[in-house]
């Protein structure tokens, strides 16, 4: 009798341990997969930043007390040089399918109910009609820049200071903050 009780307890412990191991397995695996996806995305962003930094370093410095003419000239020259260096750049070079799936899943998970309603209101109220959703095209100066709520930015992979996420309708753009070029974009990024 005593032996049977002990064997039952051992079996229960064994089954529980197996279940726990199975539970931990996929979740740990998916976590590391997600990290790798984000790391790879960040690396691709850094590659772009490296290119634009190299170009900007070769240009005359923009003073922290610049005149409007200097700001305009610097932006224009910077834009032209980066556009030339990235001729033939295609959508999806930075927003690859794996990071797109990751971002969509993250936003779906993080924004529900009231939070999602608030996010959609913020993003969709902005006047961005007419912004060309095209790689290597400048974000038009006369168009509004959608406010990116802090809760949203905390959910998205962090970007280097030179880069910005911007929404145009439901599409999420990666924009260079100094030269204003659309570096890449993903469609349907708003849950």
């Amino acid at each position, binding site marked *: 009798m005593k032996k049977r009780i002990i064997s039952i307890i051992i079996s229960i412990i064994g089954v529980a341990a197996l279940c726990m191991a199975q539970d931990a397995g996929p979740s740990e695996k998916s976590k590391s997969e997600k990290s790798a996806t984000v790391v790879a995305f960040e690396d691709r962003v850094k590659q772009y930043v490296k290119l634009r930094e190299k170009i900007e370093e070769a240009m005359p410095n923009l003073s922290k007390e610049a005149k409007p003419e200097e700001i305009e000239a610097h932006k224009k020259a910077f834009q032209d040089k980066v556009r030339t260096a990235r001729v033939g750049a295609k959508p999806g070079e930075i927003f690859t399918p794996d990071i797109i799936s990751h971002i969509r899943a993250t936003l779906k998970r993080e924004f529900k109910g009231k939070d999602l309603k608030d996010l959609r209101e913020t993003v969709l109220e902005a006047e961005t009609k007419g912004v060309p959703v095209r790689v290597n095209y400048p974000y038009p*100066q006369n168009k509004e820049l*959608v*406010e990116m*709520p*802090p*809760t949203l930015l*905390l959910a998205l992979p962090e970007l280097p200071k030179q880069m910005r996420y911007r929404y145009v309708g439901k599409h999420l753009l990666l924009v260079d903050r100094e030269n204003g070029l659309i570096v890449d974009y993903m469609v349907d990024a708003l849950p």
Partner: protein
Amino acid sequence: MRRLMASAFAIALIIACSPIENAFSQNGKSGVTKEPARVNLPLKDGSVRFVVIGDTGSGANAQHEIAEVMLKYRQLFPFEFVLMMGDNLYGSESANDYKTKFEDIYKPLLDAKVKFYASLGNHDESNQRFYDHFNMNGNEYYSFKKGKVSFYALNSNYMEHKQVKWIEDELSKDNSEWKICFFHHPPYSSGKSHGSDKQLREVVEPIFVKHGVDVVFTGHEHFYERIKPQQGIHYFISGAGGKLRPGDVKASSLTEKSFDKDLSFMLVEIVDDQMHFQVISRTGATIDEGVLTTRESKLKATTK
């Protein structure tokens, strides 16, 4: 005949739907009933004196007119600097736009060495941070000090992790008597068009409360609103410095005072633990005024 009537109807419709600044410009300067400037501020020696304006950069006649009123008031209330709540340049941002939407309009103030400290709105490119007259020193968010008052300019249009960490770190080290933050989007607002920015509030307000921010100035809404103190913080919206959304305030339980009938700006004077303010409309009329005290002095008063 029908075509003529249709054209007349279309023209009438366009005029009826024109933004308010166009209506002002049709009236011209003579269309504005000016009131004599009257300053109800203490004008104490050594006080910190400034102006708060927001959503200015339209370049329209209305912006010129309100700037003239600011200038007139400066003769009676010599303010040292101006805080800008963002949307400093609407539309394009060419060198000429900096001239027509900012420099030409505030030239007498710039000539008088009045400093402008800008924050960025949803119509402003990041490159404005390099512009000498905006005194941002190449930063989208920054701080500066005047006497016992610390000012923090934030970029609410892109409140990323780094900025949140920066403001928390800076405020935690700051022992100033007054801590004032200014940025574009209002955490509290009774505006019909935009309303309170709850997502921003969720992140910044706990930091402000924790580190004793006394006053928050914002814009974005094209009107003036003084919010009832929230968690000990005084929130103001001063977003009618160049554009107006008439009738856009839906007075709510948040509203202490609001004004959406004309353009406006704020005159502020800080004397020791008191902040005096007077809000002026485009006609020169006073539309709100009052005195606030620091959180700390309020606390002392209640524990006495």
